[in-house]
């Protein structure tokens, strides 16, 4: 690549990586929709889509084509620029955070030292897009959906961040690649199994993530039986497809994040060098399997639990998850201090107690 300006090469690399991740996310999101519909079908003693492609695997292409061919309608009283911008913001919020997710050893687009912080903050941008969509639609359903989203957001963000902090206290870093590196070795090295506080933090984080993803039982902002479709009531065609894709992309993002934080990311659960070119992709496959498992659990929960009333969801987030996550944070601090006081950092138990410190 001599003679080509470095800026150009760099820009090309960025575009290629972004295109790769976008393709990955779009395809996996599409298949997640398929999985969701098949699983919900089986839970309700139906079959679900099984016509397009093998067992309906290409259903998302057909759905996408259908949405693309729909009329792109814009409400006459809508706030036009904000209405048009909202799906972009929502998708950007869901998609940008994939840059810092470690897909395998060294397979990370941007290895940032503040990776976890970036993921949590970028995924919060999605909420801004939701509020924009709800407000700009100038429709009572959309405004109600946006209001509920605001109320829900300020309640789930705190337990979400605090339970992630439990892992940060253990790991001593916000860098997701390093957090995953520290979980190498046996399955007991996964942060999920490093003491009761990290174990409890997993469930708190998972529940708060469900709220962040607007998944049932926290689908209060969408609440199709009450608000038509909530904030995206007025959206049609491609714009609706973008909302839909962003929702599932965020699901994948949080599943990847939970895998990286609690389930060892790409580490297989036994001692093996994951640095080689082949094992690197095996690690990616393992991470993908963990992600799929978490996605399946999310879908399973969605088709099990009915929707919370908004005050019940707030009760859960403020009065249950928040004190529990604070308790976990304090507990894990004590755990790390005890580990420091009683054990040598190089010993097995000490390392287990103290995480990466």
């Amino acid at each position, binding site marked *: 690549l001599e003679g080509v300006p470095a800026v150009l090469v760099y820009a090309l690399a960025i575009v290629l990586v972004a295109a790769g991740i976008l393709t990955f996310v779009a395809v996996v999101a599409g298949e997640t929709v398929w999985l969701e519909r098949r699983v919900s079908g089986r839970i309700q*003693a139906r079959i679900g889509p099984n016509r397009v492609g093998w067992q309906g695997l290409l259903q998302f292409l057909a759905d996408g084509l259908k949405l693309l061919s729909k009329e792109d309608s814009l409400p006459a009283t809508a706030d036009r620029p904000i209405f048009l911008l909202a799906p972009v913001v929502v998708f950007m919020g869901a998609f940008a955070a994939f840059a810092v997710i470690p897909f395998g050893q060294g397979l990370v687009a941007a290895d940032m030292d503040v990776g976890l912080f970036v993921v949590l903050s970028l995924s919060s941008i999605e909420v801004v897009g939701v509020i924009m969509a709800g407000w700009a639609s100038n429709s009572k359903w959309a405004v109600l959906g946006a209001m509920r989203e605001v109320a829900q957001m300020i309640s789930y963000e705190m337990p979400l961040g605090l339970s992630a902090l439990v892992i940060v206290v253990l790991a001593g870093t916000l860098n997701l690649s390093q957090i995953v590196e520290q979980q190498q070795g046996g399955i007991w090295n996964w942060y999920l199994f490093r003491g009761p506080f990290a174990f409890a933090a997993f469930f708190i984080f998972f529940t708060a993530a469900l709220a962040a993803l607007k998944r049932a039982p926290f689908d209060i902002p969408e609440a199709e039986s009450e608000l038509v479709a909530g904030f995206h009531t007025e959206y049609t065609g491609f714009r609706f497809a973008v909302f839909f894709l962003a929702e599932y992309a965020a699901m994948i993002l949080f599943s990847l994040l939970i895998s990286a934080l609690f389930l060892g990311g790409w580490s297989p659960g036994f001692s093996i060098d994951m640095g080689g070119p082949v094992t690197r992709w095996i690690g990616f496959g393992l991470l993908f399997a963990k992600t799929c498992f978490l996605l399946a659990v999310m879908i399973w929960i969605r088709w099990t639990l009915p929707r919370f009333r908004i005050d019940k969801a707030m009760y859960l987030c403020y009065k249950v998850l928040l004190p529990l996550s604070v308790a976990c944070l304090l507990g894990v601090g004590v755990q790390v201090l005890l580990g420091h006081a009683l054990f040598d950092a190089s010993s097995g138990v000490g390392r287990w107690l103290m995480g990466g410190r």
Partner: protein
Amino acid sequence: MRRGYFGKIWHGVTTTARGLWLTARHFFTRPTTIQYPEEETYLSPYERGLHEFEPEVCIVCYLCAKACPVDCILIEEDKARKSKAGKVLTKYEIDYSKCLFCELCVDPCPVDCIHMGVQHDLSALERGAHVKIDFTSGEGPWRTALTSAHPDAGVQGRNYGGSRS
């Protein structure tokens, strides 16, 4: 029952677990969906589909037409060719836009020449093609239903037999 703070949390966790267990069990049950055009649908032994009619047996007594609550049976006979053997049927038409599939036309027939068949999946390329069916002329689905040997005749719950007497 009043629960305390931790009682509520415990209740939420256990009921969620029970719900998840229930849906997991449902996930592994067989779907009840029938892939209809490819798989056979369940037909009741008393299925009332399109009529089957045997014009050769009919004695043109008009009892079925009189029994019909919606007057959907039109019978025409050739008065000129009245023979010793009986009346001559020229047209036996049922208007399926009116027909209720109530089976009241079947009971009064003294010679058992009209039955309720199992044909229920009619389709045509023109609107109105299957609205009025003349059972004395032409080959149509009613003929197929009558003559196509009813492979599973006698199988419980699947009535492919033409007549029930």
